[in-house]
């Protein structure tokens, strides 16, 4: 082991230079299994001493070590590069194979082929020497045969796999933009072999090892997983695709300590893929909030008078109202109060999110709901500004189809309330809203609906009578939205936004008030 460590110290700087100095720590040599050479945990490469010992006599230690490092670094530098790419590849493979384990295996092998081929094409590497000496069975034999064909280097493969290899060799492995299509083709060609491999694993009760290491969530840090999920949520076609992929990886994510509680990590409730989807998607948007100069000055200022009595301090006596005399009953003293004067530091009020989840709205668990996404973005914006958020989710509120969440900073609870879908009629119980508004000091209101509300007139009347800042977002355009706009056009504390597509969401400005807006300019 010491010998390997010595060689590693010598080879690592050269390998880093060859790959243009990747941001990776010095690899570790560990006592591991003989069958797997490399493990990557977060960014830490771990090389199995037993594997290298086993290769002695077949290939020099230096060459084997260099090849293993090249392989590991290529995964880091080229494919998968990040967790988002890994997820995307897995999702595409799953579409083709319709099975979680098959898709995981196909993804792993595909990433190996891409990383190895990239390394062979772009760098001086000993990978072919290593592959020549590795055992070749099942998928590994096919891959070695493929390498032989596409690298043009003899790897000593004997079996005839010409038809399969011919198909595999037509895949543009180094075309990143085509990886989605490529992995589907790749997976279909080796599908039967993957099935055999899984059957063999079930028979032997152990995994068929991938000699140069497995690809799993262990390869990524929690931050990378977070970032990957965020990008994945914004690139998938719909919530179902995201859900399917996350459901498949649920166990691994939980094992890794990833749950949606709090900031998306740490111990918490089991992962709800729908919630996670909206959470991660909403993180891609930043909605601006107009802050209010609500800061109290903290100074005590004279507020009202009270009669002076013997024993009360003299310094608060108001000589003007006391006729210049100090006499109990005649002399007046100032009562001081803390002033609610606008200071220079602005702050964000709490927010009540009113979301319509009636039948005319999209079910957020089936398709991407702009209402939920908009509400989630608003929630994020207020929470980020250390404000609290309450939720009023309604459908036919008078029949009990409503959900009230009092002011809170618990992101998961808020998201759960936002994502609730009733799918019935549309009526608001204004008493509920009045009740929630009383729970905070002049909170903002964010309402998102298609405005097809049965008691819209009452809502307009209600909004006419309040001074809270209201951000009203309507999805699509109809007579009801026109009526709402018309009914409240004179109210300066209400701003109206239209959302037709996802791209309209960033245009929303929370808490925009014309008066305040103009005075701050």
């Amino acid at each position, binding site marked *: 082991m010491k010998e390997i460590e010595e060689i590693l110290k010598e080879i690592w700087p050269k390998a880093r230079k060859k790959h243009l100095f990747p941001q990776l720590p010095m690899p570790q040599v560990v006592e591991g299994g003989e069958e797997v050479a490399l493990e990557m945990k977060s960014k830490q490469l771990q090389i199995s001493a037993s594997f290298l010992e086993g290769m002695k006599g077949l290939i020099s230690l230096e060459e084997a070590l260099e090849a293993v490092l090249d392989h590991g670094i290529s995964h880091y530098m080229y494919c998968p590069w990040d967790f988002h790419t890994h997820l995307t590849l897995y999702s595409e493979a799953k579409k083709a194979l319709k099975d979680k384990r098959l898709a995981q295996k196909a993804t792993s092998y595909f990433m190996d082929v891409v990383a190895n081929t990239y390394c062979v094409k*772009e760098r001086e590497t000993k990978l072919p020497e290593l592959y020549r000496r590795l055992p070749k069975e099942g998928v590994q034999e096919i891959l070695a045969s493929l390498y032989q064909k*596409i690298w043009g280097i003899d790897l000593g493969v004997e079996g005839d796999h010409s038809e399969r290899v011919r198909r595999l060799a*037509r895949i*543009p*492995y*180094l075309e990143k933009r085509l990886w989605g299509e490529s992995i589907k083709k790749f997976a*279909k060609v080796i599908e039967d072999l993957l099935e055999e491999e899984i059957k063999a694993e079930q028979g032997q009760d152990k995994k068929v090892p991938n000699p140069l290491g497995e690809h799993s969530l262990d390869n990524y840090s929690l931050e990378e997983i977070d970032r990957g999920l965020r990008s994945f949520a914004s690139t998938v076609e719909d919530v179902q695709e995201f859900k399917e992929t996350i459901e498949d990886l649920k166990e691994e994510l939980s094992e890794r300590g990833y749950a949606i509680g709090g900031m998306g990590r740490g111990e918490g409730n089991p992962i709800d893929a729908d919630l996670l989807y909206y959470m991660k998607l909403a993180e891609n948007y930043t909605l601006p909030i107009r802050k209010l100069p609500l800061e109290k000055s903290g100074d005590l200022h004279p507020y009202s008078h009270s009669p002076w009595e013997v024993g009360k301090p003299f310094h608060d006596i108001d000589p003007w109202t006391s006729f210049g005399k100090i006499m109990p009953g005649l002399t007046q003293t100032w009562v001081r109060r803390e002033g609610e004067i606008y200071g220079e530091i602005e702050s964000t009020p709490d927010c009540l999110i009113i979301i319509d989840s009636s039948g005319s709205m999209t079910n957020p668990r089936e398709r991407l709901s702009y209402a939920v996404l908009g509400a989630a973005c608003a929630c994020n914006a207020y929470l980020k500004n250390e404000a609290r958020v309450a939720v009023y989710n309604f459908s036919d509120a008078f029949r009990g189809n409503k959900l009230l969440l009092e002011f809170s900073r618990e992101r998961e609870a808020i998201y759960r309330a936002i994502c609730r879908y009733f799918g019935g009629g549309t009526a608001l119980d204004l008493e509920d809203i009045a009740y929630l508004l009383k729970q905070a000091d002049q909170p903002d209101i964010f309402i998102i609906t298609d405005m097809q509300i049965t008691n819209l007139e009452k809502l307009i009347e209600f909004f006419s009578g309040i001074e809270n800042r209201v951000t009203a977002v309507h999805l699509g355009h109809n007579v009801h939205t026109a009526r709402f706009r018309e009914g409240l056009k004179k109210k300066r504390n209400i701003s109206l936004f239209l959302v037709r597509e996802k791209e309209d969401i960033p245009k929303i400005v929370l808490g925009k008030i014309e008066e305040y807006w103009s005075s701050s300019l």
Partner: protein
Amino acid sequence: MRNPFEEFKGQATKRREIPLDQILRSKEETLSQILRGYENLLKNEAKDLVWLMQYSTVIKAYTIAEEGIKGIDYTAEDIEEFCYALDKTDQIPYLITGPAGVYISALCNHAKEDEITLRLQDLNVKINLLGYRLPEGKRLIVEGNVGDFTGIGLDGGELIVEGSAKNYTGAGMKRGRIVVKNNVGFNTGHGMTGGEIVVGGRIKGLGKIVGGKIYERDHLIFPSEEMKPFFF
């Protein structure tokens, strides 16, 4: 001042060529030749404005298709690639499933391989006329569903559809064998004079059949007591 990039001078800047590059280049070249042939066929067919599925139209289109593919060195994988290119509007200016099917059939009938497998499960369009005039000694396996007029005028070859086919499957076939794993549509075997059609699932309806045999779920349904040969 020392050049900070000095130590990278030895780094290879020219990209190494590996056989994969050559394979991909030749694949692209072949595909573009096939596409040119198809465009040529479309240009000719577009003159008639409306592509009607008539005996004479198909024969004419097939002759032009045969001309278009002359001299192209292609494999079964290239044909499959072309089928997927039909799905993408950026590669093909417009898709007419009739001429496309005739063209693919011509490609299959003139391919070097005796056995051709087309994996078309992920195709969005259902191609018509696949297996048209498939000659003796050729075996065409299609994974996925196909459209109308599959295997018409089959001429001794074996067409296996691992999916379903639509109407007029095997119409006018002379000899050979068509196997459809799942279901077929109406007018199956219309005008066929020989050969056999084996359907693993359900046949919606038979056409006017002159000769040959048709099996539905292992049962011979033509000729039978209820279905006698038709004389035109």
